[in-house]
């Protein structure tokens, strides 16, 4: 990559895009914007200036294409448009819009590029540009990887500004007043004589005006919304019980269904006996689907009951039947043959390890279920002309391809009505449930079929977070950390997940190592090698993906070395940190928590730092070792996203991320026995409940050079901070999640 500098940026961009894409695309193709999908189906009296703004004589509609699974992005996207459009919350409607390549995700490339997030050198930036070009050429619309804010931040403000300036031009043409004399606020253009023209009144005139495409974005000092507390647009409905999720959707003539497929994921159905089930109340139809059966009924509960009454003969799992074999597979993967990538090799690790007394440890991170509160569900109606799908999903184009693959339509004939999602954590990236719903609907043409998973089916057919194993060796000298040699073996989550979408991404899997090598510490001798284990149970992205495992291994081992060196866990991390923005995050969390202050004899504190999704995040956890077990008293989180859009939602997401990270580290895992997940409902994997929830203090810094998303980054440091705190309080070092295998919690 060193030679990149000798080429022009554009030559690199197009050349590499051609190679990686396998097709020769010209500069023109990369630079050409996609057509505005709103322009294709404009009703009478409607006008659109870009894919995000639609106005007619009655209302302004803002298109917020990122899926809202609770992170508040519908509101966030609307706020970014509204900031420049000069319209207030309450003066417009929103829509998730139809799937379109025009909504390609401009920020997905950042996480996919194999560079440290803190590396903003020319090579790293050029690689990100290449990948972004590919994402654009593929028209990849999607929500994930904490990208909604960085994807939207500039382009949605531009969309708002272009619409505003075009409306002003229309108003100028209509009134003869020059554009320079016009102002905008509250969804209207104001004339110098005090007259006001609402945007809706200008829709007709604006449809004839030349759109304004060149706009300057306002300086932050002029912002009225960004950075200030907002009331999320969905807060009222979500406090009234009136927010409709996919599971609440209703279509005229709809029937209810559920499915049961082989709990040994991907295993065959050898046979079934549905005689008793057929005769049960409310049952309309029992139909086969891939590796299983669907029950169609007049009520979801009737469908659940009948599905339970079917006798199944399931085939074996296409992966090892027992959990021990999964761990053994990882254990056997620490070899050159499985080396996926050597992510970091600073100093001379071999020499350093030879100098001192080496400390070694092995760590484990288990499979974990997504288990969002809203179980998977979808309504599908198939007709000859088209397919309609009502569900909440993060990848509209994946959904269209998956459903079209079942029904024989073209993907463009699949009309997707995206819905609010009752939690995802990565679950709604997957398409298997859509294929199943389509398989039922295609057998009942014309009838809308609402398919709902039982909670048990949701657990059995989750694609959990991947398991991983870490082996670390290190040395200390003179009270300092001297060397770290970390190796991680895991099956490739990227390969497993993309494979289900029919893709095989080239190169190493960054998620095996994410959260470990990329922490911007200057340990003098630091090597990190990732090993790709053979595929095991099918796995998927789970909120923060690789970083909760690899981050736990790295930070826990760093903590072990710091204790061995006799250094202070906070001071040594700060000393080792070579990245200013990250160092300030550590210093902030130290200050917030009054690190070093007096603690009771049975109390302990741990600190952890993990950078993920470009967000340096540090957490301090304080625990008390009580006679009833470990109690988590207080948590402090500091992180840096460059710019906070809404401080209220930001704090909520950071607190929630910490709860998510702590709760799963405490007591959640999926284990396989006889090829099936042993955990069947929340009593087997409940994470944190209210009485266990500590006070959580949050500080968001804004020193980073790029704006980042906060959905995932608070999760990874929670587990190591808790383990480090338990060590500080009890002297017991826990190297395996869930910690409930080793300690009790109050």
């Amino acid at each position, binding site marked *: 990559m060193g030679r990149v500098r000798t080429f022009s940026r554009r030559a690199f961009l197009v050349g590499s895009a051609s190679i990686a894409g396998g097709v020769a695309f010209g500069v023109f193709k990369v630079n050409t914007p996609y057509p505005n999908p709103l322009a294709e189906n404009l009703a009478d009296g409607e006008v659109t200036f870009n894919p995000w703004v639609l106005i007619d004589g009655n209302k302004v509609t803002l298109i917020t294409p990122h899926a809202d*699974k*609770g*992170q*508040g992005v519908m509101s966030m996207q609307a706020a970014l448009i509204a900031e420049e459009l000069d319209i207030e919350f309450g003066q417009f409607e929103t829509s998730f819009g139809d799937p379109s390549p025009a909504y390609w995700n401009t920020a997905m490339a950042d996480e996919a590029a194999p560079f440290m997030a803190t590396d903003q050198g020319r090579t790293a930036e050029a690689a990100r540009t290449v990948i972004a070009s590919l994402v654009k050429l593929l028209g990849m619309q999607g929500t994930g990887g904490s990208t909604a804010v960085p994807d939207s931040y500039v382009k949605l403000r531009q969309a708002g500004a272009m619409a505003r300036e075009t409306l002003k031009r229309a108003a100028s043409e209509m009134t003869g007043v020059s554009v320079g004399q016009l102002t905008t606020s509250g969804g209207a253009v104001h004339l110098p004589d005090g007259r006001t023209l609402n945007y809706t009144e200008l829709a007709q005139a604006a449809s004839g005006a030349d759109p304004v495409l060149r706009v300057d974005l306002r300086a932050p000092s002029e912002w009225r919304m960004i950075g200030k507390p907002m*009331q*999320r647009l*969905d*807060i*009222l*409905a*979500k*406090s*009234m*019980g*009136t*927010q*409709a*999720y996919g*599971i*609440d959707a209703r279509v005229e003539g709809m029937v*209810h269904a559920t499915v049961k497929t082989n709990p040994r994921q991907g295993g065959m159905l050898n046979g079934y006996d549905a005689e008793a089930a057929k005769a049960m*109340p*409310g049952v309309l139809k029992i139909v086969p689907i891939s590796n299983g059966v669907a029950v169609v009924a*007049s*009520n*979801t*509960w009737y469908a*659940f009951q009948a599905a339970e009454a079917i006798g199944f003969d399931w085939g074996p799992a296409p992966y090892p039947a027992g959990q021990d074999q999964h761990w053994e597979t990882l254990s056997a993967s620490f070899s050159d043959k499985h080396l996926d990538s050597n992510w970091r090799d600073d100093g001379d690790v071999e020499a350093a390890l030879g100098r001192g007394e080496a400390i070694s440890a092995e760590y484990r991170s288990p499979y974990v279920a997504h*288990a*969002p*509160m*809203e*179980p998977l569900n979808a309504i599908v109606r198939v007709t000859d002309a088209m397919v309609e799908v009502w569900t909440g999903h993060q990848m509209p184009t994946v959904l269209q391809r998956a459903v079209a693959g079942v029904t024989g339509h073209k993907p463009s004939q699949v009309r997707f009505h995206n819905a*609010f*999602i*009752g*939690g995802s954590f990565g679950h709604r990236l997957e398409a298997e449930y859509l294929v199943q719903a389509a398989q039922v609907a295609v057998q009942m043409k014309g009838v809308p079929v609402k398919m709902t998973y039982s*909670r048990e089916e949701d657990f059995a057919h989750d694609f959990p977070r991947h398991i991983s194993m870490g082996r670390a060796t290190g040395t200390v000298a003179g009270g300092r950390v001297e060397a770290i040699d970390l190796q991680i073996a895991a099956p490739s989550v990227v390969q497993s997940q993309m494979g289900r979408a029919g893709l095989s991404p080239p190169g190493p899997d960054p998620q095996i190592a994410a959260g470990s090598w990329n922490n911007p510490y200057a340990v003098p001798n630091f090597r990190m090698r990732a090993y790709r284990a053979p595929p095991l149970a099918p796995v998927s992205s789970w909120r923060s993906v690789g970083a909760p495992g690899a981050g736990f291994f790295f930070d826990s081992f760093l903590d072990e070395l710091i204790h061995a060196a006799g250094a202070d866990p906070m001071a040594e991390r700060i000393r080792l940190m070579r990245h200013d923005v990250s160092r300030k995050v550590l210093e902030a969390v130290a200050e917030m928590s009054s690190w070093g202050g007096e603690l009771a004899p049975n109390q302990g504190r741990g600190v952890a730092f993990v950078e993920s999704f470009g967000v340096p995040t540090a957490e301090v956890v304080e625990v008390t070792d009580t006679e009833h077990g470990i109690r988590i008293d207080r948590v402090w989180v500091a992180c840096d996203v460059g710019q906070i859009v809404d401080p*209220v*939602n930001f704090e*909520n997401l950071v*607190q*929630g*991320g*910490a*709860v*998510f990270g702590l*709760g799963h580290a405490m007591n959640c895992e999926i284990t396989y026995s006889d090829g099936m997940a042993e955990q069947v*409902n*929340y*009593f087997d994997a*409940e*994470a*944190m*409940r*209210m*009485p266990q*929830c500590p*006070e*959580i203090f949050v500080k968001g810094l804004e020193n980073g050079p790029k704006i980042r998303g906060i959905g995932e980054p608070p999760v990874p440091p929670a587990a190591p901070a808790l383990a480090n705190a338990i060590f500080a309080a009890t002297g017991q070092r826990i190297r395996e999640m869930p910690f409930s295998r080793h300690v009790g919690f109050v």
Partner: protein
Amino acid sequence: MKITVNGNRHELDVSPDMPLLWVLRDELNVTGPKYGCGVAQCGACMVHVDGEAVLSCQMPVGDLEGEVITIEGLGTPEALHVVQQAWVEQQVAQCGYCQSGQIMQAAALLQENPDPSDAEIDEAMSGNLCRCGTYPRIRTAVKTASASMRRA
């Protein structure tokens, strides 16, 4: 079979074993109460029956005695229930899927005990799971609602 939900009388023709939750959701299109677990583990389906907090997934409709109030019957956008008002003020919700149940549980708690201690709040809310982790805000919102009830 007849039941009363949010003041409306309904005639039903379903199996008496059917849990109230599925009568509400699929028969009556009252979707505020949510299906989360079906086994009394998450609290998302909580409603009030004659003022008592009840897990509607555990209540066979044939055994129902009393009037059902769901979150839809608790307040209106113009006249929010004091608990809903606190939920809006504290901006509790993330995905919001569990919040119907959280609000119904909190309303039942405050009805019985208008000034609960932290421990009493934790205890009362312990059956309501929130996967997004909004617990710190739920705790604050219950206290906010409690304070405004005592002011009123």
